[in-house]
């Protein structure tokens, strides 16, 4: 980032905070203009929160280490989710993850993705877990590309009624991740358009990654080997 560009952006943002948007709109270069707009949004947000705007408006609103949220993101967002969707939190706020109840998960997901100052637009991973004692869990790792927040959401469900609302339409990768979780654990995702097995053949029986899984004896007449007899 050259010094002139930094200066240009910080000048434009100052003028815009004072009310004159033309300074930003008149910047010709599209990249610099968008950086200026982002810096303006950040400055406004910091003003709203009462803290002083960053002196170092380098034009990129990536939270550097110095101004990263000092509060644990899981705790912070768990609190906000609880305020917006009362009754959705399952237990207390924790540091490592947010534990949710499955009912309002779809609405919460849409809110997390579209809310302006969160923008969790990237679903990193859905992990299924067999917690023992007849409880299954689905763990979602979310990440915001713009603000670099990373949170983990866990939803626990009983084994005999393993249903979680699907978030396939919110994050499109949810389609395949949920199919994989269904394939391995038997958690069915309600509202998924095409829930079928992905890694195993369609007519396989059982949910392999559960701790109490027993491999089927034969598959279409082929014996599934359980003991490594005769192998080296």
């Amino acid at each position: 980032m050259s010094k002139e560009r930094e200066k240009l952006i910080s000048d434009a943002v100052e003028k815009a905070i004072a009310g004159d948007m033309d300074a930003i709109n008149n910047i010709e270069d599209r990249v610099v203009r968008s950086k200026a707009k982002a810096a303006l949004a950040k400055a406004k947000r910091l003003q709203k929160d009462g803290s002083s705007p960053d002196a170092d408006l380098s034009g990129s609103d990536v939270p550097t280490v110095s101004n990263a949220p000092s509060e644990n993101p899981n705790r912070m967002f768990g609190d906000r989710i609880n305020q917006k969707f009362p009754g959705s939190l399952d237990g207390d706020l924790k540091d490592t993850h947010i534990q949710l109840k499955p009912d309002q998960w779809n609405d919460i997901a849409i809110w997390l993705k579209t809310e302006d100052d969160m923008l969790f637009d990237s679903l990193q991973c859905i992990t299924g877990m067999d917690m023992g004692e007849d409880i299954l869990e689905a763990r979602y790792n979310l990440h915001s590309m713009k603000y670099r927040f990373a949170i983990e959401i866990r939803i626990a469900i009983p084994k005999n009624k393993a249903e979680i609302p699907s978030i396939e339409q919110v994050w499109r990768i949810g389609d395949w991740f949920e199919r994989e979780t269904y394939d391995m654990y038997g958690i069915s995702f309600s509202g998924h358009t095409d829930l079928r097995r992905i890694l195993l053949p369609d007519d396989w029986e059982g949910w392999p990654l559960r701790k109490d899984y027993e491999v089927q004896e034969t598959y279409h007449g082929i014996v599934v080997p359980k003991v490594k007899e005769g192998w080296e």
Partner: protein
Amino acid sequence: MGIVHGQEMVLNIGPQHPSTHGVLRLQVRTDGEIISEIKPFIGYLHRCFEKHSENVTYEQVIPFTDRCDYLASMANNFGYVVAMEELMDIKVPERVEFIRVIMGELQRIASHLLALGVYGLDVGAFTPFLHMFRDRERILDIFEMTCGARLLYNYMWVGGLSHDLPVGFMDVTYNFLDYFEPKIGEFNDLLSHNKIFVERTADVGVLPPDVAISYGVSGPNLRASGVKWDIRKDEPYSIYDRFDFDVPIGEGIKGSVGDCWDRYYVRMLEMMESVKILRQALSQIPKDGDVHQTIPKKIRPPKGSIYKRTETPRGDLGYYIVSDGSPVPYRVKMRSPAFTALSVLGEIANGWMMSDVIAILGSLDIVLGEIDR
């Protein structure tokens, strides 16, 4: 005015096909040559990696991780050991970190050479494939010199490495770097700016950045769509924050941003950046340090879980490891970049012709071992 409805043909590409990069079945519905729907079917290479990892100890999982993305084994190992070391709070000596970065970057060059060579083969150019393999062989020779294996290394262990660098490693690697840098210019002349290649790949299979992020695409595929995201720079692990390198993004030089040519060219530029990192690492590596020093005698991580991402040649590889205090993992989930890259194929390949589907699939650079685990 009537609309003529031809009959749509349903075809299978694969599972055995020269261009599907593994055993992959694409069920394709076409109207003449134009595709109207693609459904990938995977699972032909499923080897139950996650179930196995619940029955073996933490060290024994490492050879399993090798075999997932068998074309970039060092990167898989790297991701796993970085996640484990963060879970167990181990700090490895400097020399180990430098060697890991060197191996990771050499592996990146080797993997990109293969990806680009095979992509040329898919599009019909037979010669760059062999030239790139010739150069890749030299890298595999370096790996063989170090740990004895050419493809599946089991090299990076939790807390250290399996072997130290052999005598003469620095000379061989410097020779390779000096030999390789002008080769990239050769490849550019032969293939990248060739008019026929550009016509086959420019403006084909454009991946818009918001679609890419929603589908979880990462790595060179995401960077080619214009999003500047590289875990080595944005969430640095190991000692990557000490090196000075650029992150190339696609700029739509030959067509639109995010087309196949961009994905191809980003990989080409990344190889040059890896050469830069390698030169810096080779000059800064500390001369002494024991690579076996901080390897714990028994790996018993504290109870808890961790999700850690690292940058492999194909994108960001995530390991979600859950430990319950015993020497055997409770759950290891591997989130592979090729899985997400393949899922976006159904979205971007509609409306193109049959030859374009092969070109788009090649540009996404998938490895079925990683997708199916």
